[in-house]
């Protein structure tokens, strides 16, 4: 092993760590980790000796460096990660001919309800969809790591409350739930009691 980079020999003063070397380490860490790296993890690479501003700046530089390639550096809920640009996928698919999972409408609707109305119980989902929600639907989403049970509602039967996970946001390239496509503006159309009362008052 070459010795010149032994962490023990790193200068403790943050700014004395050559910024090219720092970027090189950042790049390597991001290229080798599939899961997004949050800033506090990234800091660990440098024994917490570099502050967030410096790192943010270097990450932006890295982002620019890669802009013209087949991969891009992005921020998602979990942190920073590299992923391939969409136009690369057709080529990559030639290596892995198996199709990625396509979800049924039932699965997608269940996911949408959990995403937009979380936390919800299976009963809540059934009420909105108007049909029973089969276990395999929830299992599919749990297996993908997109939803999990975060507790129980304190009613008879103590049903599990489901919510979406950080992985869900990561896999959909989102930083937060607010970035989900806004719900279609049906509020004005929905005739809730309050609504009709308001209207009758005006």
């Amino acid at each position, binding site marked *: *092993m070459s010795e010149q980079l032994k962490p023990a020999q790193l200068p403790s003063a943050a700014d004395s760590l050559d910024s090219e070397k720092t970027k090189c380490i950042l790049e390597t860490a*991001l*290229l*080798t*980790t*599939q899961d997004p790296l949050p800033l506090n993890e990234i800091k660990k690479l440098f024994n917490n000796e570099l502050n967030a501003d410096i790192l943010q700046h270097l990450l932006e530089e890295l982002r620019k460096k890669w802009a013209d390639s087949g*991969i891009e550096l992005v921020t998602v809920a979990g942190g920073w*990660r*590299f*992923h*391939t*640009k*969409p136009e*690369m*996928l057709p080529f*990559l698919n030639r290596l892995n001919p198996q199709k*990625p*999972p*396509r*979800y049924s*409408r*039932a699965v*997608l*609707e269940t*996911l*949408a*309800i959990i*995403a*937009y109305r979380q936390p919800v119980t299976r009963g809540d989902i059934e009420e*909105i*969809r*108007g*049909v*029973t929600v089969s276990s395999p639907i929830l299992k599919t989403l749990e297996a993908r790591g997109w939803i999990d049970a975060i507790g129980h509602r304190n009613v008879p039967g103590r049903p599990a409350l489901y919510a979406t996970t950080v992985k869900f946001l*990561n*896999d*959909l*390239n*989102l930083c937060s739930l607010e970035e*989900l*496509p806004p*719900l*279609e503006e*049906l509020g004005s*159309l*929905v*005739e*809730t*009691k309050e609504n*009709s*009362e308001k*209207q*009758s008052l005006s």
Partner: protein
Amino acid sequence: MNQVIDSIDKEPVAKVCGEPLMEIPKDLYIPPDALEVFLDTFQGPLDLLLYLIRKHNLEIRDIPMAELTRQYMAYVEMMQAHQLELAAEYLLMTALLIEIKSRMLLPKPVADTENEHDPRAELVRRLLEYEQIKLAALRLNELPHAERDFALVQAWIEKESTQQPPNVHLDDLRNAWVMLISRANVNRHHQVTRETLSVRAHMSHIMRHLNDRDTVEFYDFFSPSATVPEVIVIFLALLELAKERLVEIKQSKVFEMIYVRTIEASATA
């Protein structure tokens, strides 16, 4: 309310290319083999109702219950006629539709206010909420998905060269020794002092030295720069080695050179 229904029944149910359509198209016939596919197409009664409403351009805020119920029941009956396994929810919805329809046929109370609860309100709310989620699901599906629309980058981490060997701290050794002593209740004569440790260390050193060359002159073990304590320790080490029958110290005649060699060397000599 009743007159709304009546008027709607007389109004065109939809406009097709600007032409008012007075009658629901008789397109309810679906080939039996397509029925199963058809059943799969709908996520449930709400989905089917929405389909009917949208397909026939019905006003969702003022649903013509009679028409919608008729349409809906036509589908359900058709599916039942073909003995397709119909989820209970579909039948439940039939009952609900009929109930709403009949409540709307009841004569209006005299004290009619706008606050009066529309029997359709809850159904409309559910339909709109469901439609909202249905659209949201579509949008969600259009977002880029990991694996489906992009791949994650992960270069191989080459680890083979860095199998970390276990670390041993001095305290580990000390603790191991403490454990040994307390466990075995070793006699006092096993006690090793700093001095005897020095002797032990030199015993190893001398053995190593002797392994390299067969015979070593006694005085060679004592470097001129050695301090008095060092000389003593080396001397004790040699004596201890002799006592443990690890080395042989030999002098052929008085005042001749004293040679030290391992017992092994002397055995093979």
